[in-house]
């Protein structure tokens, strides 16, 4: 029988319509980029028995299994259950019919650097927060990319995402414990922003220069520097790759708690629902913000959120990025 597909349904089901006629590719989400090694058995089984025996590791920390015939989609979807169970249902994601595979593809896998399970620089457990975000926003069709990174080194390139969540630590100084070795001062100057200076054999921190990386804590041989146990995050917005005005995300909220970050991300869907251009097949969140302007976006996503006292919000954002042509956002009067 000739294939008779609802292309949009296939795509929404997290399968790709590929260049190879008759063959799809399955995409698997790994929220927070971390999973039990046992799942490799299933992934291998699907790739070898249904696909071409290969697996592509995606930039968004998922797996893509090429050349699976479209007819096999329902069968493979059923096989996926243990994976969906462990990586989605178990963290609280609501999926009505998990035997039918992934319910949406628009909101992408929430990626994360390895975080403090392994990395000494990390200020928190990135996978835990990525999963918390996944629970709140998936399934959803809106095209949003989110990444979570353990420290301002930003190894996951969170600043290239619509939302970049960067874990920061507030350094707390114990004057009495400091031996004035200058390790923190020299290091902050060489590697970070030079927020520290020596004064009378002790250290003073310029709060405006400090980016909360936590390097000073790593350096200190007496634990004079420690991290405030309260976790804080910097939220950057609307970084993107793509063909139209690619750019690095800009700082939106600084020193926010995890709850505030998650609430803001959740609110984004209401904002997008209201302002999205429905004439387009899909409109990427960043371009919606370009149209409405930052202030409209800001007020909408902060609506109803009680910010933690330490949080600071950007008044304006000076968008940068690359412009292929200087008139990229110009429209003729005849255009709507």
């Amino acid at each position: 029988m000739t294939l008779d597909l609802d292309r949009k349904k296939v795509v929404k089901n997290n399968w790709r319509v590929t260049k190879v006629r008759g063959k799809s590719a399955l995409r698997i989400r790994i929220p927070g980029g971390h999973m039990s090694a046992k799942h490799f058995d299933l992934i291998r089984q699907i790739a070898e028995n249904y696909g071409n025996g290969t697996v592509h590791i995606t930039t968004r920390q998922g797996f893509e299994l090429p050349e699976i015939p479209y007819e096999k989609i329902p069968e493979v979807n059923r096989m996926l259950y243990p994976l969906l169970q462990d990586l989605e249902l178990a963290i609280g994601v609501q999926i009505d019919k998990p035997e039918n595979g992934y319910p949406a593809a628009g909101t992408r896998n929430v990626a994360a650097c390895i975080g403090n399970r392994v990395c000494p620089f990390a200020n928190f457990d990135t996978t835990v927060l990525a999963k918390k975000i996944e629970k709140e926003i998936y399934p959803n069709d809106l095209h949003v990319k989110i990444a979570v990174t353990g420290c301002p080194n930003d190894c996951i390139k969170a600043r290239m995402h619509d939302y970049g969540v960067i874990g920061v630590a507030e350094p707390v100084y114990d004057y009495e414990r400091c031996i004035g070795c200058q390790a923190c001062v020299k290091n902050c100057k060489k590697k970070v922003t030079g927020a520290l200076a020596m004064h009378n054999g002790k250290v003073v921190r310029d709060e405006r220069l400090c980016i909360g990386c936590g390097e000073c804590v790593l350096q200190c041989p007496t634990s004079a520097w420690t991290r405030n146990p309260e976790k804080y995050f910097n939220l950057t917005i609307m970084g993107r790759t793509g063909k139209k005005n690619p750019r690095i995300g800009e700082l939106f909220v600084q020193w926010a708690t995890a709850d505030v970050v998650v609430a803001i991300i959740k609110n984004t869907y209401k904002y997008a629902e209201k302002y999205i251009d429905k004439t387009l097949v899909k409109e990427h969140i960043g371009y919606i913000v370009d149209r409405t302007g930052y202030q409209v976006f800001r007020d909408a996503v902060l609506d109803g959120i009680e910010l933690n006292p330490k949080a600071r919000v950007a008044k304006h954002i000076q968008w940068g990025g690359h412009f292929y042509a200087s008139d990229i956002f110009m429209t003729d009067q005849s255009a709507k």
Partner: protein
Amino acid sequence: MGKSLSHNEFNVLLGALAKDYNIYAPARFEKQGRFSDTDIIRYRQVSQVEEIVWQAKSTYSPKEVVMPVTQTLFYFTQTEYREPETDTRPCLVFLRACDINGFASLDKIYLENGGTEDIYYKRLREKVKFILIECHTSFDNCFCVSMGANTTDNYSMAVRFGEENIQLELKDEQLAGYLDNIGQGNDFKPQFIQENKIKVNVPSVAEMPDWIYNDQMWKQYDHRCIACGRCNTTCVTCSCYTALDVLYDDNCQVGERRRVWASCHIDGFTDMAGGHGFRKENGARMRFKVFHKIYDFNKRFGKHMCVGCGRCDDNCPEYISYSNCINILNDRLKEGEKASV
């Protein structure tokens, strides 16, 4: 005299002791470790047995009780000076055998070195009574047995902590009254660790031969050691301070003289006026430390400075093993002897 106490009874005892003593013990400082969501264990005042970390070795040593990291010696104006008030209450310190022996090293340096007593140390030190924490097992990197620091009888009370109850031995009659109506009598005596996984062969030479000072063995530390000083700051027997005068910002006619811990591994330790410094290479600093710990100090005081607590190895971020360095040194000295025969 021995006693067995429940945890509740032990807390009653601590409560009674706290009326007359400041009680210091290793305690957990949650999420204050170098890496996020890790803890450190260091000394602070405690009032309950639940606060005392007896299951693990402390990150920092109990020397902090008698050697504050920063100690103001006196305040001065143009014409006068004045010492700060000090807390005169006596102290009880919970600590292990190696650390009690470590205090003996500190005492040598501060009370016997060059025939002068360091009064600032003495004031804090003479208030201290020791409560021995019995070690159930030897921890990672411990080599107290090799240093002969695994046993001690220098304590007022000894304690075996357990999940169910606590055994104690009382030696100091001054503390007897606090125990009168508490616990079951027994004849408890603490046990000491008789073997560590790590064994160190301390060279037994009367004089280090000249060639060993420039031996190749120190070279590896030039690039491996990052001169961070953690091996010194966590060590129970490192006792160096540096003194400085601080003039207050709002009135530079008044200020204070203070001393702050110094570290022989950190830049600046050997700097003198005019900018000259010995031991620029980190390998030379390693050599200086090792010789001080297991040779020079012994020559002067007839006792090794190092007590084998292993904190230097626990905390070195570059995985430099001081205990292994001593073994390398011992081997090199033997090889050298053979070579010269």
